[in-house]
């Protein structure tokens, strides 16, 4: 940018690029707005009663009226989710590295992990409550338990599929296993890691909200439980919308990291410069 553009075409190109970037930023909004519009239309045209499927407009108006309650609950849920998610990222990375680096560990614990993960976490929550009581703690643990596995699996796959040629670069320098993982394994598995984050962050929300609806008196999960037992379906949907929004927000954050850390993987063969620019 500090270099004055010399060619005649440059400014025009830059403008169209800025425009393209804008469209890119707006595209997801357009998709969401379109979906909501169709939804609204369907509800109105078929006169679907709100206890079956409330119209988005109704959800928004109810949500706006009860915004302070919803925001309080959302804050609580966000906190527990983030805690659980942070634990999942930390443990998932470490465990993924371990599982991915050792064939023996891979073979030994994968079946157990898959088995454990096939169990609905709802079934675990009562047991959690026995050990840690009711409140935000089981929600944190559930968010952790549910989002840990995708991270582990993907990191392990990323580490296990590192090209031996790249490992040899470091092995030839006498690098330790840990160094190889730090310098090769982790960077190489970043695309896998970030793919898993997209899944994990969603699941973390699912986990904490599920736990909140079973063993808590705070958070979006609890709010939705109360709302639906009062037949306030639009309020329950407002809770869902806020959850979706938080999910998207977390995605945006992890996406920003992703662009910084895995830009090298996404380079268009035509444009030559990382398509993430």
């Amino acid at each position: 940018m500090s270099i004055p553009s010399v060619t005649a075409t440059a400014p025009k190109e830059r403008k169209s690029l800025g425009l393209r970037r804008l469209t890119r930023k707006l595209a997801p909004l357009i998709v969401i707005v379109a979906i909501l519009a169709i939804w609204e239309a369907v509800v109105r045209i078929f006169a679907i009663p709100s206890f079956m499927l409330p119209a988005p407009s109704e959800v928004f108006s109810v949500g706006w009226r009860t915004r302070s309650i919803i925001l309080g609950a959302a804050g609580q849920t966000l906190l527990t989710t983030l805690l659980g998610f942070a634990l999942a990222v930390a443990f998932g990375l470490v465990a993924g590295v371990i599982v991915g680096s050792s064939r023996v560990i891979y073979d030994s614990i994968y079946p157990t992990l898959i088995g454990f993960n096939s169990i609905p976490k709802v079934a675990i929550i009562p047991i959690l409550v026995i050990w840690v009581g009711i409140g935000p703690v089981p929600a944190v643990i559930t968010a952790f338990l549910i989002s840990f596995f995708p991270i582990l699996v993907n990191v392990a796959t990323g580490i296990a599929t590192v090209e031996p040629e790249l490992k040899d670069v470091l092995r030839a320098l006498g690098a330790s296993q840990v160094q190889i993982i730090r310098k090769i394994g982790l960077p190489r598995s970043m695309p896998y890691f970030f793919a898993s984050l997209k899944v994990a962050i969603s699941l973390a929300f699912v986990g904490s909200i599920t736990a909140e609806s079973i063993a808590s008196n705070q958070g979006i999960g609890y709010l939705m439980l109360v709302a639906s037992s009062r037949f306030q379906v639009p309020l329950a949907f407002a809770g869902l919308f806020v959850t979706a929004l938080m999910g998207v927000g977390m995605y945006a954050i992890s996406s920003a990291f992703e662009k910084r850390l895995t830009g090298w993987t996404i380079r268009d063969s035509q444009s030559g410069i990382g398509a993430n620019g």
Partner: protein
Amino acid sequence: QEQSNVRMLMDWIIAVQHSPFLIADQKGYFEEEGITAKIDPGKGSGFAAINTANGVYDFGWGDLTTMLKFNVENPGSELVIVYQSVDATALAVVAAGDRGIETPADLNGKKINGTPGGVGFDTIGLLLDGAGVPDVKLEWVTASPELIPSMIVRGDMDGTTGYTFTQAPVLLDAGLKADDIKIIKYSDYNVDIYGPALFTTRAYAEANPETVKAVVKAVNRGTLDMLSNPQEAYDALQTFDPLMVPTTEEYRMGLLRQHMLTESVQEKGIGAVDDARMQHSVDLMREVFDWEPIAASEVYSNDFLPPVEERMVPKS
């Protein structure tokens, strides 16, 4: 005669309180009326109300309070009671016997399970008012049903709100002796409201009066069978669900009969709604929830009942 399909949604997993439907099904009472019945376990009275209102099911069976609440929240989609199965409310506080809870007054400061929106939580004021202890403050603990027994046993809570015949049996399952389970029934403290009932939508009832009559008739026969011969109920349940635990169901039946075989039922037969009593029930709810006035006649109809002779319960 053409068979018509009728789908019925219960309020919870099938237990002995639902045996009238099972008996009617298994003994061919529905079939005799030209009905092919599908009886499904449910996920709460609210779920039953919604899925009856939206037409996924034709009938629902569940709590009166919940049903009324649905009607108020969703004007235009009225549910109407067509057979009042349980005459007196089964609402109660069920507690462990060692917590010193004998009367509603003892509930002060006690940890009791209940969630805003849940029937027990919402209606506790009726019990306290009825008992003349309106200032009693409970400490509410929110936990879903499957958590309650272990939390009570461990002392994380002292008791729970809910139905006698759903909450007390789980405590029995959790290892408490029947004598160690303390049940404070709302009906013992001047709270005179109706219990769970069979309902359908007004639209369905108006469109299919004969079917409704037929269903009510069959259910009524099943109900009488259950009341006159409990063993039939257990057998029907066993057929439906081989994993049922007979001792628990016998205990449940004992509780259930207390609410069903009230004096008025023994006098006037089962299934009918008394307008004045219903109005009283509705008005009590109105106070609790701050509703607009509701006419009792909007929420029930005795028009589909068989004649009273067919509804007389066995003398006990």
